[in-house]
């Protein structure tokens, strides 16, 4: 995991799933979500997968897919900070 993201001690919402399942989870369970392009960077990690890829906002938190080469895709929840405003601006 990226050092910066790891230091934020993310809550793991979904574990070792596929990027498609992560996409569906965010679409179905997070009211506010935004489509981002593959490679979009949040903190020190890139969103990996095939479009469409979604990043959700829940209160002060971001919910997004995080893909590890050996362990599949995780859906993680972390405090969003300035990344939330940057994401909303893309609309």
């Amino acid at each position, binding site marked *: 995991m990226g050092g910066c993201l790891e230091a934020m001690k993310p809550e793991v919402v979904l574990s070792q799933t*596929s990027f498609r399942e992560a996409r569906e989870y965010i679409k179905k369970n997070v009211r506010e979500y935004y489509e981002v392009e*593959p490679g979009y960077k949040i903190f020190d990690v890139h969103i990996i997968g*095939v479009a469409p890829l979604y990043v959700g906002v829940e209160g002060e938190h971001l919910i997004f897919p995080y*893909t590890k*080469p050996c362990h599949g*895709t995780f859906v993680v929840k972390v405090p969003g900070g300035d990344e939330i405003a940057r994401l909303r601006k893309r609309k």
Partner: protein
Amino acid sequence: MTENDEKTALILLGCPQVPVQTSVALYLAYGLKQRGVRPVVAGTAAARKLMEVADPGRYYLDEVTDLDDMIDEITGGERDFDLCFVFIHNDSGVAYAGTMAYISKARLYALIFGEHAEELAGEIEFPCEIVAAKAVHNPMPLKRRLNEVMQWAAVSKR
């Protein structure tokens, strides 16, 4: 495309859990070099170490770099390649290949292997050349498929 108009190829390695990956990646690097294409390997720490330990004299390898750093450089517009070969044996591999299809202008090759090669090949829904073989321990089925595409990959124009 990147340095001095020399043709370059990115070899993107994911989890090295399936034995054929290291062997075929070294073979691919060798084949590309033979055809005048400079191979650049990007992968996880373990995948890189397997390659570097297998080629201590650097006969086959050239530049070897971290997977995330490479994605950073490509998305940042700092570099790109003429060809990109993504090794795939799991869902994460498909995800990385899909990302490369989006962020890079390279001609993309999805090298799919492992126990579930056929199913994974069926999940590819982005533009690329699929090179698939059910190969886990024996690299020959994937090597044969790779030989078929490598010949024209080296001479083709984007």
